[in-house]
């Protein structure tokens, strides 16, 4: 039986079951991950760098790097089976039903076309707008994502824009077709907080008006705290905790979640000693008999490393993968 994260049962927009991804020489980087996202739901996927967030997203998008491979698992997008889908199916789905924004936006823009042209073309081809309407809508979208001088930006090439501007262009392109699900992988990390807040608001509005579902990937719990209804915490390729944002933040049940809370942005400015999570995550493919967080966990006992630790269903949509759940209950908040 695969471990599964409890989620909404009614017609999920995305269902990922038992996904295993390996990189390089069969090193497992994502370990049997399961989760689902309901229509219009916003879910945060949170973990330190290297925990497998991006590989999970790229699997869903059919965009794994050449050295990466889905070993097994199922991916279903609103009834459409994407497991082992052809390139053609994926190309049809991406940019219409499935949108994506990554941190390194520059590499997704065509350097030889103006950014306005790229957005307008998308609107013409995928939404059937006339040339004039596509232009007008493109300028509107550029305004919505907070670009100064949207008409001027329309005529610029990607290399003439700063990283932050390119990021906003990419967000405009990916929401332009009003996808069912938008995957934003550290999409706002490189932006200043004002624009980040504007873009998170924009995504929230799109959820209200178009029923857009959102998978927001970040290393900072603060970013998902006010934006996502549910949180998935990922560590070393495994989901270690999930639940509603309110529950997880108020009563974390996994020591790793508690550690992430300690390093997250708290939005106060007085001088203080900054917390860190001691040690490093295990390297990818490292064979560990029990809990993968044990070497860094201040609650670790021998029970934690004697065998696999399952993801336990805690009821009320919550789950956590810790051998000492009962002993630690109430100790982590």
């Amino acid at each position, binding site marked *: 039986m695969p471990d599964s994260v409890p989620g909404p049962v009614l017609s999920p927009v995305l269902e990922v079951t038992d996904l295993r991804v390996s990189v390089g020489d069969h090193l497992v980087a994502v370990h049997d991950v399961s989760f689902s996202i309901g229509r219009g739901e916003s879910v945060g996927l949170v973990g330190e*760098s290297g925990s497998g967030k991006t590989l999970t997203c790229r699997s869903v998008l059919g965009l794994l790097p050449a050295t990466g491979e889905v070993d097994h698992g199922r991916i279903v997008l609103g009834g459409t089976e994407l497991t082992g889908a052809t390139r053609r199916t994926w190309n049809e789905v991406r940019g219409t039903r499935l949108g994506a924004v990554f941190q390194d936006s520059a590499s997704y823009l065509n350097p030889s076309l103006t950014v306005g042209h790229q957005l307008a073309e998308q609107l013409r081809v995928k939404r059937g707008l006339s040339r004039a309407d596509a232009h007008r809508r493109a300028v509107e979208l550029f305004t919505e994502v907070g670009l100064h001088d949207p008409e001027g930006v329309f005529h610029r090439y990607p290399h003439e824009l700063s990283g932050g501007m390119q990021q906003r262009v990419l967000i405009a392109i990916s929401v332009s077709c009003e996808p069912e699900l938008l995957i934003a992988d550290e999409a706002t990390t490189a932006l200043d907080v004002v624009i980040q807040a504007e873009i998170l608001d924009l995504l929230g509005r799109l959820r209200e008006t178009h029923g857009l579902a959102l998978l927001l990937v970040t290393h900072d719990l603060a970013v998902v705290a006010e934006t996502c209804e549910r949180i998935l915490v990922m560590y070393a390729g495994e989901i270690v905790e999930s639940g509603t944002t309110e529950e997880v933040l108020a009563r974390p049940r996994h020591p790793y979640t508690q550690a992430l809370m300690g390093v997250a942005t708290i939005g106060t400015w007085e001088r203080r000693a900054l*917390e860190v999570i001691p040690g490093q995550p295990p390297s990818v493919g490292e064979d560990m008999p029990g809990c993968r967080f044990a070497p860094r966990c201040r609650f670790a006992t021998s029970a934690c490393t004697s065998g696999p630790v399952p993801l336990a269903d805690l009821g009320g949509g919550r789950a956590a993968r810790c051998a000492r759940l009962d002993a630690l209950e109430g100790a982590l908040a």
Partner: protein
Amino acid sequence: MTATRERPEVSGPEHTQVAPVLRVSDLSVSYAPPRKGTHLGTGAALTAASLEVRPGEIVGIVGETGSGKTTLARATVGLVRPAAGRIELDGQDMGSLKGRALREFRRSGQVQLVFQDPLRSLDPDLTVAELVREPLDIAGTLSRAERDVRVAESLRLVGLEPESMLGRRPRQLSGGQRQRVSLARAISTHPKLLFCDEPVSALDVSNRNLVLSLLDRLRSELGLAVVIIAHDLSSLAGIADRVAVFYRSRVVEQGPIQDVLQRPAHPYTGLLTASAPSVAHVDRLRPEQLRPQPDARAWPSHGVCVFAPRCRFAHDACADQPAPVTLPGDREAACHVAGEWRTHLTTTKES
């Protein structure tokens, strides 16, 4: 506890008596005029910016993309020539340095830059030992043996064990370790001033805190003056003493960080703090209270206050760009209603 140890007092009255390491006055920088058909290089990258940084002090620079933060760093190390204004390092006017004198100053490594992405800024073919030694080789003042000692010392200062690190190359390091190597490299010449351009933006939260704590330690142990450029307030939280807020080529507000961020005098700073994400439910203004109302008037793109098009409180007087005004508590802000806009906020809310 790091939070309670001794360090130079920076915001008391004696603060202004310590001579600044860096004094930038009314600095303006323009890049070359735009190439035909592009909009690049239009306008000024930096307009009449003033800033002081004292030994042992951490000054944060925040602002959105393109606001001139990196330009200030580039001008300070002599990579771009200012159109106007003055840059003094340790009392010496940088504008008077030309040709050989300027090259010698740069080689001396008194001012060091640290960049955002260590994977791109560190030569992938060099070992950690070679990377950290390079600035010392360029400065050329120490013997070989002295350089080896300095390399090991610098690595220890950033919390890396020389024995296990010296032979590694950038790809064999984690993101946090790479950024610490960049820091070791930057401090190897015993600079007076460290300019860190987005030093933690490529790192996750845990590594971010690690590198920031390290900068905090270096400034007190080495009496180093540090400037941290960030697009994000969380990259300054907990360690910076003062903050300068940039908006479209101008310093729109500056002062002690806690005062400025807790009671912003400039509407843009207000928007910045209201927009900062947080895991704690702090009682604060919401960004939508500070964004312009839908029926706000359109402002021309030149001559008016740089923030007018996005300012909730823009009014007739804002047709003229305000000059920075001094406020109590060692602060300044460039706004016609500096510190007073909160009262307008209440009226707007009540009406």
